[in-house]
């Protein structure tokens, strides 16, 4: 689906830090500190030993998390584009609309709101405090979403960061940076590209990228 970006979030224009870069910040995308691995393991074993959860329960949760991916969000978007009543329901109350369309249970996942991009208004999501992300419909967030650069710069120079993703918005388009600071998660309903009127819902799903549902990109018109 979405191609992986080079991560355009450093101030000095160089590419993303690599695991062999000794100057890489510790919480950068590619490197996981060995002590973090040990800490996770110690904590996990203790919680299992104390019966807070079971190894099987943890495994089920991991499988559930890994089963979520951006195609779920894309299916929701394609339906909203093709069914105005569905779109109205989705924007008013996202969870039940998503549950009924995808046949999944979102009872145990955080609250979710879908924000709509239009020709005059562009939303982009971030989480300055950690890495809150609409995992229920987009899966695991990309590494750059969790990077300190993205989190700091998206709220302080959003138009420049969007431009680094190739998204250059004219000044008459309002940019709304949505900082997911609390119990609400957000997904962006991207603007439907022109010249897609004759496409089937399945064709539309294939067009919709993860990044457009984060709001860092705008979907291009399909090549004809």
């Amino acid at each position: 689906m979405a191609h992986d970006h080079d991560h355009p979030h450093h101030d000095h224009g160089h590419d993303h830090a690599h695991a062999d870069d000794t100057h890489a910040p510790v919480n950068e995308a590619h490197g996981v500190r060995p002590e973090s691995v040990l800490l996770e393991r110690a904590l996990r074993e203790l919680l299992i030993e104390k019966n807070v959860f079971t190894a099987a329960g943890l495994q089920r949760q991991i499988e559930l998390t890994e089963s979520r991916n951006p195609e779920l969000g894309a299916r929701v978007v394609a339906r909203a584009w093709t069914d105005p009543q569905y779109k109205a329901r989705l924007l008013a109350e996202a969870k039940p609309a998503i549950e009924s369309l995808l046949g999944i249970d979102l009872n145990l996942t955080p609250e979710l709101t879908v924000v709509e991009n239009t020709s005059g208004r562009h939303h982009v999501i971030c989480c300055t405090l950690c890495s809150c992300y609409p995992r229920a419909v987009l899966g695991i967030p990309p590494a750059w979403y969790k990077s300190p650069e993205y989190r700091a710069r998206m709220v302080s120079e959003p138009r420049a960061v969007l431009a680094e993703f190739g998204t250059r918005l004219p000044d008459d388009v309002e940019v709304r940076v949505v900082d997911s600071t609390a119990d609400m998660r957000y997904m962006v309903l991207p603007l439907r590209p022109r010249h897609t009127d004759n496409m089937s819902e399945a064709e539309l799903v294939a067009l919709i990228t993860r990044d457009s549902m984060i709001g860092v990109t705008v979907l291009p018109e399909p090549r004809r």
Partner: protein
Amino acid sequence: MTPSFAPGDQVKVRAADVTTHCRTPHYLRGKRGVVARVFGAFPNPEQLAYHRPGVPYQPLYQIEFDFREVWGRAEANTVITADIYQHWLERDA
């Protein structure tokens, strides 16, 4: 706890300093905004973090901030929204 604010209300984020867990970002403390959406009430995360029940639950609001109010410089036609719990908000008369 019933919500004290409604969409359109002018509010100000408390400029308090806390050293314990909290979900109010520093860059918005003391800033003025407008209530955009009212969500339900949620357990107070400042208590949950320490294994307490999080009562009273705090109404949660999506607050809209003008870019210049937040950073003191202009960015064309740009708004920042963040979700702030009621106990961090005061009315901005």
